[in-house]
């Protein structure tokens, strides 16, 4: 106790200080610590919620990427299928078109051949006729003066005989 007195310890002051401390503690606890704690707790919750949302977002992003990949893959497959079908259709159309064109060309060729044949026939006939006419004309020219009254008389007598027979 002597020692405490030597140090300046006053029990009444000490109790008063303890009471002050308790009062300050209670006041601080009620008006300062609790709101701060509440604020901290809310912040913690917000952060946790944010983290959770971030995780969910990351997961969602991952799912979306996977889904996108899947959709892209499906789209690629569909596109490939469509391209294959289009290729097949175009090949078929090309084949049909070629066949039709070939048929048309064959028909045209056949018609052209027939036309050529027909026109050649006409030309040959015309040529034949012209050659004949020319030959006859030459014959007529060469025969002129070859026959005389003697032949004429013979023919006239034959003609008269024939007319008499008819009559």
């Amino acid at each position: 106790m002597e020692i405490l007195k030597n140090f300046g310890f006053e029990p009444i002051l000490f109790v008063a200080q303890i009471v002050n401390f308790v009062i300050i503690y209670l006041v601080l606890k009620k008006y300062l610590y609790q709101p701060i704690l509440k604020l901290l707790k809310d912040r913690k919750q917000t952060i946790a919620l944010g983290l959770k949302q971030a995780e969910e977002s990351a997961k969602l992003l991952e799912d979306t990427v996977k889904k996108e990949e899947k959709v892209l893959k499906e789209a690629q497959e569909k596109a490939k299928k469509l391209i294959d079908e289009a290729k097949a259709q175009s090949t078929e159309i090309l084949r049909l078109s070629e066949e039709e064109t070939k048929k048309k060309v064959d028909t045209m060729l056949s018609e052209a051949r027939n036309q050529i044949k027909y026109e050649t026939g006409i030309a040959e006939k015309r040529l034949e006729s012209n050659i004949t006419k020319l030959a006859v004309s030459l014959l007529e020219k060469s025969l002129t003066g070859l026959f005389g009254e003697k032949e004429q008389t013979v023919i006239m007598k034959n003609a008269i005989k024939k007319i008499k027979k008819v009559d």
Partner: protein
Amino acid sequence: MNKKLLKQLVLISYKNGDLDNETVSRIADKLGRAELKQYIKSLKNAEKLRNVYIESPFGMQNDIMKELKDIFPDQKIIDKNNPALLVGTRITHNDDIFEMNLKNSLDTIIENIENYD
């Protein structure tokens, strides 16, 4: 103008087997345009019936002419020179044509060749 009258006009247009120019002129003067056309047509027909045309490249010999006159007793025989026939004759009486000449034979050959397929 009826057919009977037309026939009479044609008959009186002939004198001694030949067409009388004076008579024909007198008749023609008295006819209208349409009647005149009918009259001329009838005269042409009568001429065709009365005349026999003998075409030949040479002149007709008397003995042959005589034979032809025997064949066509009531017709007038008109001898026409046609060197294009080459040799032979073409006898035309009304619408009948009798051909016996080289030209016709050659023409027939050409026709046959043209029609030959």
